[in-house]
């Protein structure tokens, strides 16, 4: 698929993908949204760059993007489970790299770090990306543990973002 953005003469096209339009809401802020301000979950400077792509007083772009990320992550986790069942380590590595990119773009620190580890483990490397001599079975065990951790980290990030956009109440 090739989609052209507007040039000077075209005011219509927009790459935002969305279902029904969301109601307008105040531009999300990374302050005062959770008790811990997302410390360790989200890199504020990266996410603020994303918010900077919103139009003034309209968070549709970033909100839609975040929801697209949720959908992408869910699909990736499903594919990871399938790859794990098939002992497809290279497939797991590719999936880790794929989700790492979009997680990085949203500033999701822990998810990105775990995705990177998955990328490395799937290629038989250690967590730092250095060559190691572990067996495929050992790599699978590492990945099995990592996937549980990654899912927990993703759930934490998803909750944080939903609270940020007012789509979920902060649990006290």
């Amino acid at each position, binding site marked *: 698929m090739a989609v052209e953005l507007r040039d000077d003469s075209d005011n219509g096209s927009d790459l935002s993908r969305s279902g029904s339009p969301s109601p307008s809401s105040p531009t999300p802020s990374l302050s005062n949204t959770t008790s811990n301000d997302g410390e360790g979950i989200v890199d504020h400077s*990266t996410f603020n760059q994303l918010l900077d792509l919103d139009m003034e007083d309209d968070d549709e772009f970033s909100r839609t993007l975040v929801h697209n990320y949720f959908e992408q992550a869910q699909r990736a986790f499903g594919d990871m489970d399938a790859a794990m069942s098939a002992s497809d380590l290279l497939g797991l590595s590719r999936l880790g790299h794929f989700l790492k990119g979009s997680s990085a773009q949203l*500033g999701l620190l822990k998810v990105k770090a775990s995705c990177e580890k998955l990328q490395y483990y799937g290629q038989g490397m250690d967590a730092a990306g250095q060559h190691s001599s572990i067996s495929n079975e050992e790599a699978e065990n590492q990945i099995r543990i990592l996937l549980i951790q990654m899912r927990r980290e993703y759930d934490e990030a998803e909750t944080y973002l939903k609270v940020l956009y007012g789509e979920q109440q902060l649990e006290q």
Partner: protein
Amino acid sequence: MPMPASISPPGSPPSPTMSVDSIHGHNTLRLNSPLQLDQLRRIKVMIVDDNSINLSILSRMLEKHFTDIVQLTVITTSGVEALQRLASEEFDLILMDIDMPVLTGVQTTIAIRQNTSESPILEHNQNVAIIAVTTSDGAEQRELYRQVGMSDCVSKPIDPSKLRSAIEGAMKASG
């Protein structure tokens, strides 16, 4: 001393016929040289990335922050699609993801530079400026990108100021 009749009011866009002679006649500013006119031309950019999130962010960034440089952006989701597009349209710059299925960004760049794709790409595009946009940004990988003909590498998450520097450098290098 009468002003030359060709002077336009301040703030007007430059005209090819505009020229200013100083009172002493030493300095002449002409805005009709090819270099200065080229500097006003905005570029056509192709983004290549298989990840829709990355495509959305980068294209939006160009749309919002780079309107002074970029006239039109086209997005493609694979190296194969990029090569097909390069066979029929001219581009000034490609922002290339690296890790993509089927054809990686490196393989796509090699195919462009060596024109080895199934459909020959336009001659203009063989030397198009290419910037890697990737999380795979270690020193060895950057050297590989340089060797296959990419002019720079911008890390994800993308910093708009670094992207701007890379684009300006790439455009300057490509003349």
